[in-house]
């Protein structure tokens, strides 16, 4: 047994090292620029989409990408960044604003550009020093920079149904600040007679001065499950749940496992099951970030910065140090795709998560909005390109 264990240990260690060597040899292309991407994982839709568009960019630009999955704790994030810098990356895209000041400081000392792929500066706690660093690329505002638009769309969906009793569930407000804006806009847009099942156990009949609170939980499926139990204990007759905190991954399974499968849902989040649930009416609407647009927005800035050694700057982009720059002007924007019927899902599959050469933003379109390829490119053009809606994209690609 001891011999077997010792052999297994040596086998695992040597195997791991060989796989590592293999990975290094496999990635041994000689692209001019190398970009690292930090995400919790690359196995969900989000990670797959980001990786897929990165591969498309590799085919069309002189860049290579390296993917580092990081843990959720601060030190693990820093280790991921150190790994990217050690691997010789010229720029790093981080999915999150974890330890942002420290990350920018590290990148600055290593001469590496750093940007937020799935977060923005307006809702992050970031120092002015980091924000004004030459090596900080900015972030990407989700919901095209205005979450209230998605809230209004959800209100419209709800107003078109006969359901009146509505509850919301999300991550804590501090963790998903856009969720607050979305929720408030949605409640504002509801017709008279709709009722918000407020988390403070007081029903709010619309119109009502106070908007009502949504329930929230701390990031785990167990916590979500407990919150769903609490929610239905407070209001056994809820008809629609607006699942803003990972609706498809956490909220829907929690509803089903607690015997509330007949309750309708609006979900922030996308999985392969969305089409079926929209078809059978379980879902009234679902949504997801357009990750291609997030990537395109940050990639354009990173590539221009790397190619010009930080000097390229769109003539119409707010200057570093300007008040507007400090309050979100450093961020690009990307659209949030809202799916309300099966046809939307089909279009989404065909033109957003499908083949990137026929996707939301082709390489040629992106080059037109990059200073490295078009000296007349503007920030407004780039923002318009990266906030195309599903209907815009479908209209462009379907023909």
């Amino acid at each position, binding site marked *: *047994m*001891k011999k077997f*264990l*010792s052999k*297994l*240990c040596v086998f*695992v*260690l*040597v195997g*791991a*090292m060989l*796989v*590592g*060597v293999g*990975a*290094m040899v496999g*990635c041994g292309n000689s692209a001019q620029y190398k970009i690292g991407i930090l995400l919790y*994982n*690359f196995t969900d839709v989000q990670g797959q989409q980001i990786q897929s568009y990165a591969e498309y960019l590799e085919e069309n630009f002189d860049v290579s990408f*390296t*993917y*580092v*999955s*990081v*843990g*959720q*704790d*601060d*030190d*693990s*994030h*820093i*280790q*991921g960044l*150190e*790994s990217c*810098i*050690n*691997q*010789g990356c010229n720029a790093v895209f981080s999915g999150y*604003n*974890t*330890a*942002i*000041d*420290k990350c920018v*400081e590290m990148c600055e000392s*290593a001469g590496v550009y750093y940007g937020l792929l799935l977060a923005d500066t307006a809702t*992050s*706690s970031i*120092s002015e*020093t980091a924000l004004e660093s030459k090596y900080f690329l900015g972030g990407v505002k989700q919901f095209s920079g205005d979450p209230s638009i998605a809230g209004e769309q959800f209100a419209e969906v709800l107003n078109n149904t006969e359901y009146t009793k509505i509850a919301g569930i999300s991550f*804590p407000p*501090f*963790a998903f*600040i856009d969720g607050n804006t979305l929720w408030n806009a949605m409640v504002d847009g509801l017709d008279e007679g709709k009722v918000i099942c407020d988390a403070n156990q007081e029903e709010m009949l619309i119109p009502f001065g106070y908007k009502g609170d949504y329930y929230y939980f*701390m990031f785990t499926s167990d916590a979500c499950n407990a919150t769903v139990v609490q929610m239905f204990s407070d209001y056994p007759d809820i008809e629609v749940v607006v699942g803003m905190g990972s609706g498809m991954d956490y909220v829907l399974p929690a509803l089903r496992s607690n015997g509330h499968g007949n309750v309708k849902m609006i979900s922030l989040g996308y999985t392969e099951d969305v089409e079926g649930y929209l078809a059978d009416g379980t879902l009234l609407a679902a949504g997801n970030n357009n990750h291609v647009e997030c990537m395109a927005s940050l990639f354009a800035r990173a590539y221009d910065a790397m190619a010009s050694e930080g000097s390229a700057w769109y003539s119409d982009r707010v200057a570093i140090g300007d008040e507007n720059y400090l309050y979100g002007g450093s961020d690009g924007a990307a659209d949030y795709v809202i799916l309300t019927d099966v046809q939307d899902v089909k279009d989404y599959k065909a033109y957003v998560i499908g083949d990137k050469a026929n996707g939301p933003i082709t390489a040629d379109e992106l080059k037109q909005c990059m200073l490295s390829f078009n000296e007349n490119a503007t920030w407004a053009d780039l923002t318009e390109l990266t906030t195309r809606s599903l209907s815009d994209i479908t209209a462009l690609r379907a023909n």
Partner: protein
Amino acid sequence: MENIKKDNKTGLLKAGAFVKSNKNMFIRYGLLVLVVLVFSIATGGRLFSKYSINSIISQLTPLMIMCVGMLFVFSHGNIDVAEGAVIAICALMSIEVINAMGGTAGGIIVAILLNILVCEVLYVGSIVMSVKFRILSTIASLAIMFTARGLVTYFVSQTLGSYKLENSAALKLFSQTWFMLLVMIVIAVAGWFVFTYTRVGKYSRAIGDNPLSAQQSGANVNALKYICYAIAGFAVAVSTMFYLARTGSVTQNFGSGREMDVMISLILGGMLLSGGSKTRMSAAIVGSVTYVLLTNGLSQLGMPDMYVSLVKGVVFLVMVGFTLRRQSTVKALPR
């Protein structure tokens, strides 16, 4: 001719016996040499570039300090799982104190003293609870872990998502390579001396083998446990400052997973989880170096984090298997 053959055979037998009796040492240093050699070649020397060495030192310093402290606890056969959460609560307090005192040296000293106080209360408290109420020390440490993590989550949820140092240069000293090396070496040497040459270390190893025999040999088992947990608490308090200097902020997941890093490091250093007479301080020192080189080497080669975790998990499992099998090889103490 026959004599020469006989001499050779005797030599081989002696060498075999030497290897067998020093198996732990061979595992400890062999693994380190293997990791250094393979990753030096595979990364084309990048693992030892200036930037990489700096980042290795900044990862190694808090880990080695914790391993040195935790070795005292593990030598009894006890396991602590609260390090990560305790680090988080201490880091959070440190930020509050340092910010409140304007990022001055005085603020940092107060933060360190407060960290030491809190860590001592939590660690000594947990072992007192374990001894007085006769519960497993791991259960007491789980209670500490959940309480501390809950507090961190609560406080972080009251902010915009993270606590951060207002003056990011406040802890610059703790990011200086010379200072990290100095503290790491001082604590490692002090730990080695106490564990190898004082009664605390000698009796701790004896307790790991057989607490009753140790007691009958004159060891005050409970008092020794308190002392060892106090040493571990001190190590956690010191390492907190280095972790905080690395990140400059605290979110609700700060420090999570550090307890596993410590356990795997000690195991890679050839330590038996059951503790006992074969425990050596070199397990903490060499193990933490091996662990940091292994994780950095794998990630520099582009291996996805999930595979790195898988490798860590399998190595952990296999080495625990070794530990269990080796119980029979531990000689009983003379009665």
